[in-house]
């Protein structure tokens, strides 16, 4: 009885692992790397990559600057307030990306107050790099907040008390005790946010069909020219995903 159960367990887990692994191997096998590498220099690939990286770096930076203080506050507060704010931070994570794009459009869309005002000042909030950044920030920044919150919670509060009792200010304590100890967790959050931002598709396609990010470029290549034409951009994104995994360890 015990033996059977262990075997079945092992088998079920292994099936799931194969389901993650096989498609990835299949992608690598199905296309000769030479051909893919050659097409990486195509102008639409370079343009999409530039747009994606610029937007993702910007939105990750915004997420970090605005998210870390929120994460620290959430880690050190208690009670009802914490529950409500945490729920609000998780909301963009459980909201479908396409819906995230929709709700953003109701605020920054071309026919809204804010959208019109911005467009008049020459900074259109949709169909622009700003639009991409807005979409990516909404969807990706919760990763910084949630992961950094956990990292801050992992720093023994008594160490902060000890530092303050030794006559150090809160800022010094944060800079020299809390931040160094939470750093690896925070880095993980930033990495996850970057990965999420650069892979964002649903919200981006709603806010900014142009300029094309890599995921949008894949969709267009696939739907107009077929699967093969999407491979070069996909190769870059798979590379970034694997680099993310390396950083996360």
């Amino acid at each position, binding site marked *: 009885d015990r033996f059977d159960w262990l075997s079945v367990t092992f088998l079920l887990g292994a099936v799931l692992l194969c389901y993650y692994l096989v498609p990835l191997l299949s992608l690598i096998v199905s296309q000769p790397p030479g051909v893919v590498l050659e097409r990486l220099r195509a102008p639409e690939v370079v343009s999409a990559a530039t747009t994606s990286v610029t937007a993702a770096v910007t939105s990750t930076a915004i997420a970090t600057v605005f998210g870390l203080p929120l994460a620290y506050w959430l880690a050190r507060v208690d009670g009802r307030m914490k529950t409500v704010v945490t729920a609000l931070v998780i909301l963009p994570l459980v909201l479908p990306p396409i819906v995230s794009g929709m709700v953003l459009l109701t605020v920054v869309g071309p026919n809204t107050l804010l959208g019109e005002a911005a467009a008049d000042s020459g900074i259109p909030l949709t169909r622009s790099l700003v639009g991409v950044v807005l979409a990516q920030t909404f969807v990706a920044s919760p990763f910084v907040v949630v992961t950094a919150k956990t990292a801050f919670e992992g720093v023994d509060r008594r160490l902060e008390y*000890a530092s303050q*009792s*030794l006559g150090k200010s809160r800022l010094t304590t944060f800079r020299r005790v809390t931040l*160094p100890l939470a750093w690896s967790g925070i880095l993980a959050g930033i990495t996850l946010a970057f990965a999420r931002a650069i892979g964002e598709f649903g919200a981006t396609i709603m806010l900014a069909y142009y300029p094309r990010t890599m995921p949008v470029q894949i969709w267009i290549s696939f739907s107009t020219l077929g699967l093969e034409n999407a491979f070069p951009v996909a190769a870059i994104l798979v590379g970034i995903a694997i680099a993310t995994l390396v950083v996360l360890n």
Partner: protein
Amino acid sequence: MLELTALSKTYDGFEFGPVDLTVGEEVLSVLGPSGSGKTTLLSLITGTTEPDSGSITLDGRPLDRRSLQERRAGLVFQDGALFPHMTARENISYAATDPDRVTELASLLEITDILDRRPPTLSGGEQQRVALARTLAADPDTLLLDEPLSSLDAPIRRRLRGELHTLFESLTIPIIYVTHDQRTATALGDRMAIFRDGTIAQRGPPSRVLTRPETRFVAQFTGTENLFEGTIVTASEEDTTVRIGDRTVRASATDSAGSTVTVCIHPSRVSLSLEDSETRPESENILPGTVDQWLNEGADYRVDVDIDGAPITIIATIQPAVFDRLAIDTGSPIHVSVPPSAIHLISRQ
């Protein structure tokens, strides 16, 4: 001078205070069972917890609503709470304003050789020395210690306790030493406060608290295991006669009112002998009995004696040499003697 006035704090299900307490340039050891409010007391002074009411002043400065940074109250945590990403030296110099102070403290606390190691590689005793050096490096106006020896092995604990005793004598600030170990509390404290359920059950010099407990709780918690219900028969200015069951014992004069009392005898104050003919002047209370059981506890033996003609069992702790001489065994007859000065009476309400 550290002064606490009517300090109180209510958590869910636990009430601390109101506590009034003054600590001068002395060591106050705070003793009590877990959950009696010892750690809450320290949190209120350092500022990690705000009181519901009452006030704290340190050398005349009110500490209420001040930040931790401004209080200058140095706290040594149970496990040291060293910064794990810094070496021992970095931990200490983090707190010190003068680099020479690090060298000085390291030599005082005998940690010069381990200054370049990180906390996780240090033994428990070494971590506590570094933590102490770090706290002292900030020149605090009061020193608070939260069971710093409780996680150490016996020989290191004994050694560090002796060193703390010497160190404390050289400091001229109020020191509060929290512990649940009566031995350490007695050895280190100039005064002692026994906590129970968030309030102070008794305070005073350790020798007085130990020999003259004011309640059953204090008696039991400080190791007075022999507690019997008795009735006062006669009381004069010289002595008191108390009846326990069918037996009568003579105690020193007492100020306890009422006729029913709790008779307290510390096991280390009970002597055992084979004959009742011994005529040491102070041994007036000689009770015949039978050994019920005995336990070798290493440094001493613990002997339970059933007293003849009274439904009571007296526990005595005696030294190994005496145990060997008396050839004690279960069932053997023995005489218990208790000097009147070792019998303490608590009046019952």
